[in-house]
């Protein structure tokens, strides 16, 4: 019997780690992976709550999240490929043309 709280804490930890990754990594693909990590943390929370409340609604939502994440990853990576070809660098800090 694993209490629901444990799952939720784990979800929070993973989410925090995702944020750390997002702030500290410089490669743009790695940033995307951090986003995926955050989404996964949220998915875990959804499923845990769904089980705790006894309704499958949470799991349905997880499915939708996965679908959207997939679509987003596809398009996002396509954009990254195009821009990386132009700028020849995947370092997000090099993309500072908007600096005042």
């Amino acid at each position, binding site marked *: *019997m694993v*209490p629901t709280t444990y799952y*939720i804490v784990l979800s929070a930890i993973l989410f*925090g*780690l995702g944020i750390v990754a997002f702030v500290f990594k410089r490669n743009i*693909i790695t940033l995307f*992976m951090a986003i995926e990590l955050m989404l996964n943390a949220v*998915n*875990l929370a959804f499923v845990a709550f769904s089980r705790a409340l006894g309704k499958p609604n949470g799991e349905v939502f997880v499915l939708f999240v996965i679908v959207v994440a997939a679509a987003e990853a596809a398009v996002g990576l396509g954009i990254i490929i195009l821009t990386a070809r132009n700028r020849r660098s995947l370092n997000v800090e090099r993309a500072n043309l908007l600096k005042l």
Partner: protein
Amino acid sequence: MTASLVIFFVLAALAVLGAVSLILQRHPIHSALSLIVVMVALAGLYLLLGSEFVAAVQIIVYGGAIMVLFVFVIMLLNDGEEERTNFSKLATFAGIPLAVAIAGFIGAAILSSSSTLPAATANGSLTSSKTLSMLIFTDFVYPFELTSFLILVAILGAIVLAQREN
């Protein structure tokens, strides 16, 4: 210590280690592989929670499609190890504290309401695919159709992006 608790802690440790590894690795391919580890661990956790369908979808779609896509792109844009640039002072100093803060907030919010959470999970029953599909195709049919539309849009977008410049 029941078995499920042990399994939970193992899988949780695996997930956390994978996430930490994602942060600490310098080459993006290693980060991708770490993320796959996290996905698999999470799939295991879903199974522990009795959501077999979601676990399967996690492995197939996330692990088998999305991460493969990531790996392909990394290999395509072989940029090598990450540069050690550090232009943003704000990010350097504020990053970890903020992450701790947000995690703490979330955790605190949840913990303070844990008294209202029903007692634990994993009473051994599985959520059947039948139940899920009943829900999808009746209550959630509208979002379902919308997501199919979304995928269509994504395909179109990917095709447009992949066109060669003429």
